[in-house]
């Protein structure tokens, strides 16, 4: 993860290891919001109907009706905003809409959002939604797509990345075709390290490339590697076929690292 990318944040943990989180974008935030509305609005509607039913049973005077009517709007807002608050507190920062979009609220230091932080971001939701959707405008301009509530609470919404399975993360093994062993030691391999070895490995793990493409790639890679090693023009390694050179160089690097 490159911390200079805008859509990721780097969090330095107490173990002094940097974790990369990818920040949820405006689009997925809004879709999550719409999905949550599909849950919250029916709940609000049912609550209002119940409120109305209660009021019609218990209210006896015109004055009482006035109070009940005036209170309905607040009650609706209370239920609507309460849905988000309760859902985030109960699930630890994943309302059903966020869960569906694979999003999660965390604090900017990477720890889980606690009750206080969730209280701030949900009370300030009233500002974000209430003041002509100022939250969306701020999220649009804020590099980490945080709304006012996030800024106040010190929280950020990140993508809960799908867990890549270990099997998929393990690169396929290299296939050695041309050399029975590592061959004579190559001078200058000390100059290069793991990055080059991994690059050679990726090449060697793809024996299925078309022979023409593979030969071209091998020539290119071997040429760059020979230059990097600083071998003199008459060095015997320059006379090896490129693919043989790549295999031997890889095996020697691999041995050295073991």
């Amino acid at each position, binding site marked *: 993860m490159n911390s200079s990318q805008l859509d990721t944040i780097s969090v330095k943990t107490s173990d002094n290891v940097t974790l990369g989180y990818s920040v949820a974008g405006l689009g997925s935030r809004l879709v999550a919001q719409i999905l949550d509305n599909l849950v919250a609005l029916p709940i609000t509607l049912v609550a209002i109907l119940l409120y109305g039913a209660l009021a019609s049973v218990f209210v006896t005077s015109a004055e009482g009706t006035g109070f009940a009517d005036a209170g309905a709007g607040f009650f609706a807002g209370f239920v609507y905003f309460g849905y988000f608050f309760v859902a985030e507190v*109960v699930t630890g920062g994943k309302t059903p809409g966020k869960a569906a979009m694979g999003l999660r609220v965390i604090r900017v230091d990477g720890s889980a959002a*606690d009750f206080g932080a969730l209280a701030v971001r949900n009370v300030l939701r009233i500002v974000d939604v209430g003041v002509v959707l100022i939250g969306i405008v701020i999220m649009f301009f804020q590099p980490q797509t945080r709304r006012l509530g996030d800024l106040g609470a010190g929280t950020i919404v990140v993508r809960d990345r799908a867990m890549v399975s270990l099997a998929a993360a393990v690169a396929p093994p290299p296939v050695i075709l041309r050399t029975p062993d590592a061959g004579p030691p190559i001078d200058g391999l000390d100059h290069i390290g793991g990055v080059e070895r*991994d690059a050679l490995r990726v090449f060697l793990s793809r024996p299925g490339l078309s022979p023409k493409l593979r030969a071209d790639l091998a020539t290119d890679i071997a040429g760059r590697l020979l230059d990097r090693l600083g071998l003199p023009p008459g060095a015997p390694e320059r006379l090896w076929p490129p693919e043989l050179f790549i295999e031997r160089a890889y095996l020697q690097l691999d041995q050295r*690292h073991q």
Partner: protein
Amino acid sequence: MSLDAFIAERQGRWGALEAAIKTAKRGRLRNQSASDIERFGLLLRQTSSDLAIARRDHPDAPITEYLNTLCARAHPLLYRGRAWRIGAIAPFFATALPRSFRAAWPYIVTSLGLTLIGFIAGWLAVDLRPDLRASLVPPSLFDEMARGQIGSGVQDAPFAAAFIIQNNIRVALICFAGGMLLGIPTAFVLLTNGWMLGTVAAAVRLGGYDFQFWSLIVPHGVLELSVIVISGGTGLMLGDAILRPGQLRRGEALARVAVRAVLLALGAATLLIIAGTLEAFVSPSSLPGGAKLAIGAGVGVLLYSWLILAGRAPRRPRGFTFDRPAETPA
């Protein structure tokens, strides 16, 4: 170490951490035994160090991304603030709320000042231009007072209480949330609130209904006004953190005060339930005016002794104590 050897040697604990993450319920490890959580911490630290090694040696390998995802998922399970529990409510009201009230005193005093400015302005407006009285104060209030109707009891008091409570909670939340807009809405609400009270107070004075009016306002007003002033203070806290962040970045300064401010505002807002109940049941009741004023005064004394005295650290006894061994140089 080669990538393959690295993976082969350490994938056991990655798999174990992955399995442990799956046992977490609703983003928490609460249901697990102490030894399981200890083991989780060990696995996370080991995997974090594997991630650091993978970053250095194999920055572009897929395994690095895998380890980052694994750690990023596990980290918030272990590192988190104090969990919310029902049992935390009592200590919150007993100590945390009065303490944050006292800590926020400059803002609360400012908030009170704004209310007073509004009050005085409103009072002067009615005093200087009595002819404007009708446009500043709802005339129906005078009609009712003249007919002795006010204070004759409200029907459907529970609904009146609910309405009053929600209205005040809304005002309190606007006061708090207005802090995010630099406190401008907060100041506006406080000034208007003071203005309304000031105009009405001056008008009833002109009309000679002082006693009826105050006996109608005071029982609940003490609490209500206090809560509005406190929420105004929390809003001013937020606005101040944004305007004058000091050495911090604005976002950090804001986040630092916001949690304290919101808990103070929410805690104070719960008092409005008491205030609204008094307003619907006691204030308009047929109790004698003196009793109503006494109730208001009693509520005020209780409120402020709680806010000012509760949750103080026990004072250390002055003078010589044997707390530290005598031979230790001071």
